[in-house]
């Protein structure tokens, strides 16, 4: 990413970094808030969900389950399955996480798909406070969207289809930057193949299955060169 390394530019660059996330989180969050309130819940419960659960797919999934009055255990199990991929996110981050407890636990709590993508592509010069700032801003965008959707209700309908494609564009940018960091396209080919296989096996759980397949390949594959393995321990 084109991230200014001067401290005085950091506040601006954090805001700029989270802008694409905001373009996805605010509309998506408002759709969540809208649907949640439409299903009959109080508006502040939608905000509570985005405050303490903070997991997009699981939050959307729970609306019909809550409406159907399913047992708490069943909804918890569904959450476990939908969010299982998050287990693997932490694997590439431990060395970069802050030691300071509050920052560390907040970052772990707020490790959504998008925050994970931003954090893993930051240069090593980015400090822990800035990392936490990015995570906090992202959750702020999600909360703002949820609040808007819950309060505005019917008028929260998106004016144009496809604005949430900003998230896909963000992932594309981060894929390019991850590739630029190592110039090794092998993980891309593995991911393409794994996702194809996963779509054939079980379209509902394609992302999770593809991640597990990719991890298996990543574990099996030896480091490409001595230079690369030296890079792993800064």
């Amino acid at each position, binding site marked *: 990413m084109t991230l200014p390394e001067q401290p005085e530019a950091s506040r601006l660059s954090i805001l700029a970094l989270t802008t*694409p996330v905001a*373009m996805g989180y605010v509309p998506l969050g408002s759709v969540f808030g809208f649907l949640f309130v439409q299903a009959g819940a109080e508006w502040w419960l939608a905000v509570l969900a985005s405050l303490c659960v903070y997991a997009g797919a699981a939050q959307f999934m729970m609306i019909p389950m809550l409406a159907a009055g399913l047992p708490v255990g069943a909804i918890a199990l569904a*959450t476990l399955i939908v969010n299982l991929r998050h*287990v693997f996110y932490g694997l590439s981050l431990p060395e970069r996480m802050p030691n300071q407890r509050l920052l560390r636990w907040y970052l772990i709590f707020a490790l959504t798909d998008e925050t994970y993508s931003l954090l893993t592509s930051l240069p090593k010069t980015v400090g822990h406070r800035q990392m936490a700032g990015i995570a906090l801003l992202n959750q702020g965008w999600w909360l703002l969207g949820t609040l808007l959707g819950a309060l505005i209700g019917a008028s929260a309908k998106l004016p144009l289809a496809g604005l949430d*494609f900003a998230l896909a564009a963000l992932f594309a940018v981060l894929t390019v930057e991850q590739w630029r960091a190592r110039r090794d396209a092998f993980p891309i080919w593995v991911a393409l193949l*794994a*996702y194809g296989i996963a779509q054939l096996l079980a379209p509902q759980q394609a992302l999770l299955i593809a991640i597990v397949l990719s991890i298996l390949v*990543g574990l099996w594959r030896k480091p490409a060169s001595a230079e690369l393995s030296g890079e792993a321990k800064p």
Partner: protein
Amino acid sequence: MSDSPYIITVLLAMALVTFALRALPFLAAQWLGRHPWVARLGRFLPLAIMTLLLLHAMHGASSEHAAGPWPELAAVAVVVLLQLKSRNPLLSILAGTGLYVLIRNFGLF
């Protein structure tokens, strides 16, 4: 769905499960120390997962309309080319999303 105590219980259970999943690798990292495979995954996984998230987002977007994957492929191609050339994330994302919104709303495909 007007039973607030039930909803709050469900939300707390979901919060607990989600947080536990996100915290597990960090707790496990303290127990296991630094295994070589963690470093190996750390090099391999970010690009693989980013590609998967991109594919999944494209797949999700293309299932919202009947035009096939072409609008998504065109928009992502623009983002990737711009990002490779310009290294300006905001420009790449705005251009790609703008093109995608145009295609979807004004029927270029």
